[in-house]
C-alpha cells in the first residue's frame, strides 16, 4: 500500500521509517517507550501498524446450501495471517478458496468475485453497502455467504 504523509508530520516520517519493518514485539516496546514522549500521531500510527502485524480473527458463515461446498460446515472461525496491507474481501475470497472450500469452487466463486446469486453480508449488512470486494476487514468481522441458488 502506498503510504501518504501530510507535510505536518513529515518530521516524524523518518522515525516512522525506522519502525515500519520491525516485528510486532519490537513495535510493542516502541509504543511503551514512546508513550511518555508526547507524540500522539506517531503513537497512533504505530498502534495501527501493530494491528496490521497481528493475525486477526474473522467469522465466516456459509448457508443457504452453499455450506455443502464446505463439507457441510456452516461456521468457520478463522485466523487470517498478518500481511503488510490490510485484508480486503477480494483477498479473503482467494483465501477461502485455498483454505476452506472443499469442492466445486466454480459454484462459489466466479472471476475474482462470488458467483452471482450468492449474497454476502458483512457484519450483518449487505456488502453492496460496504464497498463489496474492496471492503477492508477488521478484527472480529463477521462475513456471511448465503446461497440463493437452492430450491425454494
Amino acid at each position: 500500500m502506498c503510504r501518504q504523509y501530510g507535510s505536518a508530520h513529515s518530521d516524524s516520517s523518518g522515525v516512522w521509517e525506522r519502525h515500519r519493518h520491525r516485528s510486532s514485539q519490537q513495535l510493542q516496546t516502541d509504543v511503551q517507550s514512546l508513550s511518555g514522549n508526547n507524540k500522539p500521531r506517531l503513537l497512533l500510527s504505530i498502534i495501527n501498524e501493530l494491528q496490521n502485524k497481528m493475525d486477526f480473527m474473522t467469522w465466516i458463515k456459509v448457508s443457504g446450501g452453499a455450506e455443502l461446498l464446505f463439507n457441510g460446515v456452516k461456521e468457520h472461525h478463522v485466523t487470517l495471517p498478518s500481511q503488510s496491507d490490510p485484508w480486503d474481501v477480494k483477498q479473503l475470497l482467494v483465501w477461502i478458496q485455498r483454505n476452506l472450500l472443499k469442492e466445486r469452487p466454480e459454484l462459489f466463486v466466479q472471476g475474482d468475485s462470488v458467483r452471482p446469486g450468492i449474497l454476502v453480508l458483512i457484519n450483518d449488512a449487505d456488502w453492496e453497502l460496504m464497498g463489496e470486494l474492496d471492503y477492508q476487514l477488521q478484527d472480529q468481522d463477521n462475513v456471511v455467504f448465503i446461497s440463493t441458488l437452492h430450491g425454494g
Partner: protein
Amino acid sequence: MTTSPAFTHTATRRKSPLSGFRAAPVEMPVLCSSCVDKRAVLKRPKTGHSLCKECFFWAFEEEVHQTILAAKLFRHGETVGIAASGGKDSTVLAHVMKLLNERYDYGLKLMLLSVDEGITGYRDDSLETVKRNQQQYELPLKIVSYEELYGWTMDAIVQQVGLKNNCTFCGVFRRQALDRGAIMLKVDKICTGHNADDVAETVLMNVLRGDIARLRRCTAISTASEGDGVVPRCKPLKYAYEKEIVLYAYFKKLDYFSTECIYSPNAYRGHARTFLKDLESVRPSSIMDVIHSGENLSVREGVKMPVQGTCNRCGYISSQALCKSCVLLEGLNRGLPKLGIGKHHRLHDKILSQTPLTEKEERKLRSVDF
C-alpha cells in the same frame, strides 16, 4: 461493477490523511434512506434504496400487500392453502400471509399444504421444517404423498427411469398432487411461493423452448379455475426479488430448509437461472424487465394453441386424450418409462382402449439413457 454511493463513501474515507495507515475501525455506516436514522442493512435490487431492517421489513410486506390488493387475489372468508415445501420462498410466503391476514384483516383461513415426493434424504428432511412451521405459525398442515396418490415414490421412479427425465415426472405429479391435496382440504385457492426470479426464469425458458402457450400464461399472477379438480392458484410473491426473500428470511431468522434436491440435474432451468443471475449482477432491474416483457407480449392471431380439454381417464385438465400424469403413470406401470417423455400422442388411443403396443413401439419406449 457499478460504483454505488456506498462505495465512493469508503473510498473517500480511505484517502483521509491518517488512513494511509490502517484505517482505524471507525465505521461510517450508510444510513437508511427511509427513516434516516438507523444503519442500512441492504441495498434493494428493485429500487436501489438502502434500508434498515425495520424499514425493509415494512417495505417488503407492504409490497406484497399491494400486489395482493391490486390483483384482487383473495376474497374475505376464503380458505387458502399455502403450498409449503419448507424452502425459503414458501416459508417467507407463509410468514407474510399470516402477518398480512392479521394486519389487514383479510379474513382468510390459512392452511399449509405439502407434497411428499418420497425422496429420502431430501423431502423427508424438508418436511420436518414444514412441521416446525406448522407449529411456529399455528396453521393446519396437510401432506399428500406421491405414494398414496400414484403408488410410486420418486425414489422408486428414479430407480426405473434413471436421472435423465425424473424431473418431468416430479413436476407433473406435483402439480396434480397439490390440486388433489387442495380438494381434500376443501380450500378455495392455493398460493405458491414463486418469486420474481422464478417468473423471469420461466419466461426465458419458454422463449428458449418456443413454448408459446406457456409463454402466454406463465406471467399471470393467478389462474382461474380451469375445471373440476383444478383449484385456482396465485403467486403473491411474484414481484418479490429472491435476494429480498432470502434477506427477509435471514433477518427475521425464519426457519427454512435449503438443500438441493438429490435428483435435480434440471440442467435447462439451471442455465436460464445462471444467465439471469449474471444479468442481474450487471443490471438488477433485468428481472423485473423480463417479467414486464412477458406480461406485455401478445401472440399473433392464427398461432396454433393447444385446446384445453379433460383427461379421458382421470378428468384432470389436459390438451390431449390423456393427461400427462396418466401417461407417465401408465409408462411406469407398464415398465415403459419413455411413454410420457417426448411426443407419443398417437399411442393415447391404444392406451385408452388397452390395445397392446407393437414390439417396435415397446422397444422404443423401454430404452432408458442413464
